[in-house]
């Protein structure tokens, strides 16, 4: 294997390890931003109407996973 390739691989590995240490757990009391409505994937809430329509049509209410914006509230 060429020296350059090995160097590149080593650099990639070191960068990945360094970036890995940047990961942090968001604590329950730090979830204010995650709970903001702008953090919801579907901001205009059209999916809710689609789900409601589908639930009525298919008789499958409650079969579409969980709701919430990520605040982790219980």
């Amino acid at each position: 294997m060429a020296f350059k390739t090995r160097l590149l691989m080593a650099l990639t590995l070191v960068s990945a390890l360094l970036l890995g240490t940047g990961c942090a757990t968001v604590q329950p009391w730090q979830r204010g931003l995650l709970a903001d409505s702008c953090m919801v994937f579907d901001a205009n809430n059209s999916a809710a109407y689609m789900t409601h329509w589908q639930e009525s049509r298919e008789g499958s209410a409650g079969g579409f996973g969980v709701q919430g914006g990520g605040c982790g509230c219980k």
Partner: protein
Amino acid sequence: MGRRLFTLLFTGLLAVPVLAAVPKVAPDITLTALSGESIRIADLKGQVVLLDFWASWCIPCRRSFPEVDALHRELQPKGLTVIAVNVDEQQKNAYTFLEKYPHTMTVAFDPKGAAAQAFDLQAMPSSMIVDRRGRIRFTHEGYTDKTISQFRSEVLQLIAEGE
């Protein structure tokens, strides 16, 4: 030698659940109240204290906050002290919430989460009931229909225990 080691390990394992059941002393932290005064948890010994951690963004807190305030009004004459600890990073959000929800209980702020960390919060909202000796006797995570009645019976139990 091996037998003695085994006995020691076995006794140690038996002691684990017993030690886990021993109530923990509430961390000695100081909070700043809405009024500006400092509240040191250790100074509240002799009182039954309900610490209620809440945030403006926490949806169940919109229900728990007024109900905990009502419990405060009901049981304060019997010896309950309620401290509603706000963990909003942006305090202005807490002020907006407080304008909507009038209260009589003490509200304190923990914007950096020092108290939340010291009490090892696992969910929002979380509440701890501390006895007169300063030990955390009950911990609640989340808020359901039954929570407020559990608070009431646990607080009354601790009040009845006396010093």
